[in-house]
């Protein structure tokens, strides 16, 4: 079998795996939506409250992070014990992250569209911040997962990581709450800060995935 088809196989499993987890988000969201609807319709929630996009955003962040961790106990060992290369498993992880990030952005973006309470520019800043957080979290998640593969302190790191995700979303809430009533345009964010923020997120991701790669290189499947 050619090299290409083997990569596709590792990827295929990775994607299926990621989509399975992502669908949990949908299911939970659907349940919440149902609850709201049954409590008397959506009313102004869709147009006036940022609750839905926030909620989606927070779940996406948590899910993305959790997947980095569960990779360690499911995707990676299965992939390697069935004869996949460590390099390809790593590539598979990156694709999983990419797909999840893009889907998260689309999901939250779609939820933001009908919202009337903030300006379009605020929305794009929000999406940007969200994207950067996803990227950073992907990197941090890989870092933590990699470290816990090497040193096995899964429990401690997992809890620390979850706290981190919660804090992160709390920060987002605060950020938006502070700006919601002000008419801030994109221009008022110096482009320097924007570029800096993008760079920071990307660097965090690259660093995290690099550590992940190094750890994967010597990964052992233990009985």
């Amino acid at each position, binding site marked *: 079998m050619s090299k290409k088809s*083997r990569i596709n196989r590792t990827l295929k499993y990775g994607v299926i795996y990621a989509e399975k987890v992502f669908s949990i988000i949908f299911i939970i969201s659907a349940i919440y939506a149902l609850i709201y609807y049954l409590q008397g319709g959506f009313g102004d929630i869709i147009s006036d409250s940022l609750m839905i996009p926030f909620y989606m955003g927070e779940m996406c962040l948590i899910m993305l992070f959790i997947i980095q961790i569960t990779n360690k106990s499911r995707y990676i060992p299965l992939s390697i014990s069935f004869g996949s290369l460590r390099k390809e498993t790593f590539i598979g992880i990156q694709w999983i992250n990419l797909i999840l990030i893009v889907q998260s952005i689309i999901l939250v973006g779609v939820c933001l569209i009908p919202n009337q309470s903030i300006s379009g520019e605020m929305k794009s800043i929000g999406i940007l911040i969200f994207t950067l957080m996803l990227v950073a979290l992907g990197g941090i998640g890989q870092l933590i997962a990699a470290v816990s593969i090497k040193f096995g302190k899964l429990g401690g790191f997992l809890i620390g990581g979850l706290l981190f995700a919660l804090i992160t979303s709390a920060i987002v809430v605060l950020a938006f709450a502070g700006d919601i009533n002000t008419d801030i345009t994109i221009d008022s964010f110096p482009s320097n800060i924007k570029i800096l923020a993008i760079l920071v997120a990307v660097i965090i991701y690259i660093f995290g995935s690099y550590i992940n790669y190094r750890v994967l290189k010597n990964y052992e499947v233990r009985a």
Partner: protein
Amino acid sequence: MNNLVCKDIVKKYGKKEVLNNVNLTLEKGKIYGLIGRNGAGKTTLLSIISAQNPATSGTVTLDDQQVWENQKTLDKICFSRELNPVMGNGAAGLKIKEYLKIAAMYFPNWDNEMAINLVKEFELNVKDRIVKLSKGMMSMVTIIVAMASKAEYTFLDEPVSGLDVVMREYFYKLLLAEYTESGRTFVISTHIIEEAADVFEEVIIISDGKILLKENTQELISKAFRVSGKAEDVDAVTLGLRLHQVEITGRGKGVTVILEEGQKIRGGFDVSIQPLNLQNVFLAFCGKGEKG
């Protein structure tokens, strides 16, 4: 050269040396038995040969190509690990059919018909979660993956653990039928030595991380004898031979000898000479009190 070659394999965990200078050549198209005590290094060796575990030093090559991180060679290898409740290999939470579906995705020569057929023969319910299976059923899943992978070099770690005698016999027949039809190379590690002795063309004995011997099973057995009788007589006929499993009761003595090239048991004394089976040979090398 269609060979799987291990050269100078050393595996250390910290200061603990688990494999010590292992040199092994596995020829294509044979059924090998890998026998050794618990902790001798069987699983680690199989893990390293299949690149699921990096060696501390040394190389593993298949047809002169590195096995490590090499898709072409890894496509020819399948190491179906023992499934156990700890699930080190990632199967935790999966149902049998999910596990098999994923395996089907990864192994290039996967034979799904065979997998389905074996599930039926083993009377497994594909909807069962692997963690909830009994030890025997987990072994069955391991066997299914190994067989259906149709990999040229297939390794099984303790495939019969948990299986009752009827299923064990079924496994040996299944293994031989598949071997006869496909000529695949198998390496089977096992504790249950005597049953499997008939099935192995060659046997590899590993002890404390070192390979003690690798020989044709039948030839090895034909060189092993139990000599017993009056102590002086036994000593006389076994002069110069290496003795194992020495037992002394009163004036009587019993020893196991494994003849090497050109050695013979002397005649002319009233001693009993019994041929031995593989299990006795193994005990002679690795039994309690023996220096391996």
